[in-house]
């Protein structure tokens, strides 16, 4: 009926390919989508660590500010002596450095950690493997995408060392603070910020053109649209969002850069420019960006939960349509970031309704995940624990968005720690937990070895507990009236009265950070010493698990896998195992030996 779909002797073919590739082309200027994905992973994990470190310094300042008149003695910043006097003087952090920390923590985490960890890493690594393609449609553009991102990252890092320090106008870079150094005290740093993000934007565009083209043109025989794993679906919609949203940001950034350097007046009010125009451009990009930062994680989590529950994903079509709906509605909600901006209040009314409507596809996804674990046979491996935590925490992040979306309630909550709590429940509790799920799940495919399960579970438990202890109380700080981005919150009596909470949060944040060292250790140790994984350690269905671990250059060698079924055929009646690879022929022939 069907020819044998998946060759299991491709390693030999692949070896032959490998011999001709010199080291520098194989591992550094590589065109292999897997190597590029892994390069993105090392780069963005470095930035994740750095962004976390910046947050720790901020938390220290918030908990232990020097405000003697109000009775707060302060504590010197640990390690502050290592920093130059433009940042920390005699253990006391300067307000300009705090503002730079606020700005760079947000910028680095959003653009250089979470976004590449979701898209740069997994779109590169997974798309060809999940659709049965030997590589990307444009491997050289793909390589350029990584190296542009790398250069953008170096520029962003360099901005810490220039006169005036790094950008300090917030990660949203509101004009005119961000374009006029008379107001911010930072000139070169703001310019580098705009330049670096523009370059990173081009990197993202090259990536998404590649992902979309590959997905449309290079699917294996039998890989119909509705046989794609949800990871790939989510990455496709994400790529489309990037392709349409990033040019708007890049345009805005170029206008900003011109305002800063060659005297244009796009955003300068004193010469007729419009500060609010920047906000519209930024958030017209920025809100789709929020979905760029969560949709891929939703995809990974769907794959992992179906695998852990040993059950087909509940409502696959509803899940796909929900992703598409989020992708569409995400374009008409940006104004909810601007309720207090002075924008016409009638517009606020419109954006409030669209924003609330986007809760509907989010709820569809949540209920379908619940439906997936219902009547399953659930295996609690580390990726599953992170994926389930994603669901539990995304629920909180989604629900805390409702009072922010309701414009009158947003009046007291806007620009407070309620928003900080909300965004971290979505971007850490959601995206980052999804990333940890994905890394622990696909690590064996990437490196041929599994990560240590015990260390993985310890890391999960500590992260889950201390994440909640860090971020949940921030909701109450916000409804209690604590504004964001305050160098010294004790200046305000109503916030000073909540200082105990801030100190508690700081200690929890430090433990949360320390717990990530367990992950780092597990990751690095398992690279070399982890248990050998084999092709399909999680007994999963999708195509990547039919390739060797790690897959060789070209993935399946000369032969192309043929797809006969969807990716979620777990526990099907009549099957010999509780999973069926997508390549398994429909006659119910026994599985090919995989080990």
């Amino acid at each position: 009926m069907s020819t044998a779909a998946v060759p299991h002797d491709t390693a030999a073919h692949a070896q032959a390919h490998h011999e001709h590739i010199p080291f520098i082309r194989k591992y550094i200027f590589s065109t292999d989508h897997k190597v590029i994905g892994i390069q993105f992973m090392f780069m963005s994990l470095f930035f994740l660590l750095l962004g976390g470190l910046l947050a720790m310094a901020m938390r220290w300042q918030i908990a232990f500010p020097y405000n003697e008149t109000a009775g707060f003695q302060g504590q010197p910043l640990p390690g502050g002596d290592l920093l130059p006097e433009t940042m920390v003087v005699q253990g006391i952090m300067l307000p300009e450095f705090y503002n730079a920390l606020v700005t760079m923590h947000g910028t680095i985490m959003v653009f250089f950690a979470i976004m590449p960890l979701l898209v740069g890493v997994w779109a590169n690594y997974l798309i060809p493997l999940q659709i049965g393609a030997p590589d990307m449609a444009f491997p050289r553009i793909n390589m350029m995408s990584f190296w542009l991102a790398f250069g953008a990252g170096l520029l962003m890092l360099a901005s810490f060392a220039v006169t005036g320090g790094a950008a300090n106008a917030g990660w949203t870079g509101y004009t005119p603070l961000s374009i006029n150094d008379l107001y911010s005290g930072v000139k070169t740093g703001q310019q580098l910020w705009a330049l670096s993000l523009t370059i990173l934007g081009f990197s993202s565009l090259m990536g998404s053109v590649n992902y979309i083209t590959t997905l449309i043109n290079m699917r294996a025989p039998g890989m119909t649209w509705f046989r794609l794993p949800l990871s790939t679906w989510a990455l496709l919609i994400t790529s489309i969002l990037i392709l349409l949203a990033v040019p708007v940001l890049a345009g805005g950034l170029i206008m900003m850069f011109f305002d800063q350097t060659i005297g244009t007046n796009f955003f300068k009010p004193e010469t007729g420019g419009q500060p609010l125009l920047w906000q519209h451009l930024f958030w017209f990009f920025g809100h789709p960006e929020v979905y760029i930062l969560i949709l891929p994680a939703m995809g990974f989590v769907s794959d992992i939960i179906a695998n852990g529950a040993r059950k087909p994903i509940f409502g696959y079509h509803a899940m796909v349509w929900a992703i598409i709906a989020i992708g569409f509605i995400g374009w008409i909600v940006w104004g909810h970031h601007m309720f207090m901006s002075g924008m016409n209040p009638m517009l606020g009314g419109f954006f409030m309704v669209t924003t609330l409507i986007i809760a509907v596809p989010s709820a569809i996804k949540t209920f379908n995940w619940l439906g997936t674990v219902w009547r399953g046979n659930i295996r609690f491996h580390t990726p599953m624990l992170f994926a389930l935590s994603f669901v539990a925490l995304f629920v909180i992040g989604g629900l805390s968005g409702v009072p922010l979306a309701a414009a009158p309630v947003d009046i007291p909550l806007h620009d407070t720690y309620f928003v900080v709590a909300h965004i971290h429940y979505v971007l850490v509790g959601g995206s980052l937990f999804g990333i940890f799920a994905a890394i622990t799940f696909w690590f064996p495919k990437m490196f041929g070895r599994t990560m240590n399960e015990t260390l993985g579970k310890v890391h999960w438990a500590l992260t889950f507990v201390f994440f909640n202890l860090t971020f949940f109380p921030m909701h109450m700080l916000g409804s209690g009236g604590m504004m964001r981005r305050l160098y010294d919150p004790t200046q305000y009596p109503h916030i000073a009265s909540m200082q105990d909470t801030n100190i508690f949060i700081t200690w929890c944040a430090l433990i949360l950070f320390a717990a990530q060292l367990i992950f780092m250790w597990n990751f690095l140790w398992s690279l070399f010493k982890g248990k050998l994984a084999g092709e399909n350690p999680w007994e999963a269905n999708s195509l990547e698990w039919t390739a060797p671990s790690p897959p060789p250059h070209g993935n399946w060698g000369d032969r192309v896998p043929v797809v006969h079924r969807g990716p979620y055929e777990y526990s099907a009646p009549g099957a010999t195992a509780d999973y069926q690879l997508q390549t398994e022929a429909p006659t119910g022939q026994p599985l090919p030996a995989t080990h």
Partner: protein
Amino acid sequence: MNEFWRLPVNVSSYGGDIDGMFMLIAWVITIVFFAVEILLVWFLFRYRARPGRKAAYMHGNSRMEVLWTGATALIVLFIGVISRGLWLDIKDPLRFPEPGLQLIVSAKQFEWNTTYPGADGQLGTADDFIRRNQMHVPVNVPVRITLVSEDVIHSFYLPELRLKQDAVPGMQIPAWFEATQTGEFTVGCAELCGLQHYRMKGTLTVLSADQFNAWNAQQVAAAGAAPGTTPALAAPVMNNEAAGSPVVAAASHAH
């Protein structure tokens, strides 16, 4: 619940509606939160892997999809409809109440300057006077504010008055509030505006009508004795104010 959420004291005429809406939404999301999380934890416990058991083979259930999609849509539309009315009542200038006092609040790094109409009760005239980081208003009188900024974006935030509104350079943004209690309250900046953003704070002093009139008369006299400061905003943005005392029949507004 107020204590759980640590809401600041409310002394705003519309603050009760905002707090009520907040509490309503807080209860709705708390109930949904517990329902979903309890269901999740129960499923995880009930359907944990056991030797010899097999997961159910099913691909979904259209009736349930319709049910939870419809239920969510109804809840969010309900919240949207009731919120929209309150939002426009507070923020739409066409619905602002007739003001008893009109002020210009001009933000700059890192201070809040309030321009008072002075002896003639008209803003934009020579007898206006300006107070730095101090704002005095009468109780139970709608106060209309025109927010401007001289440099960057600031956000005028009065936690106890449930008021927040950005001040954007190049724009004149209207806002209003009506204090329901006398006392001193916080004025803060909620938008990162530079180095000393964290110290950009002032005090709102809410006075009884008599106290306010006395204070105003005293300030008018002092300003008349030492004219010099010109108003931050020369344009007559306020033109419907009755002549005379800026406090228009404060007593009649008392609730």
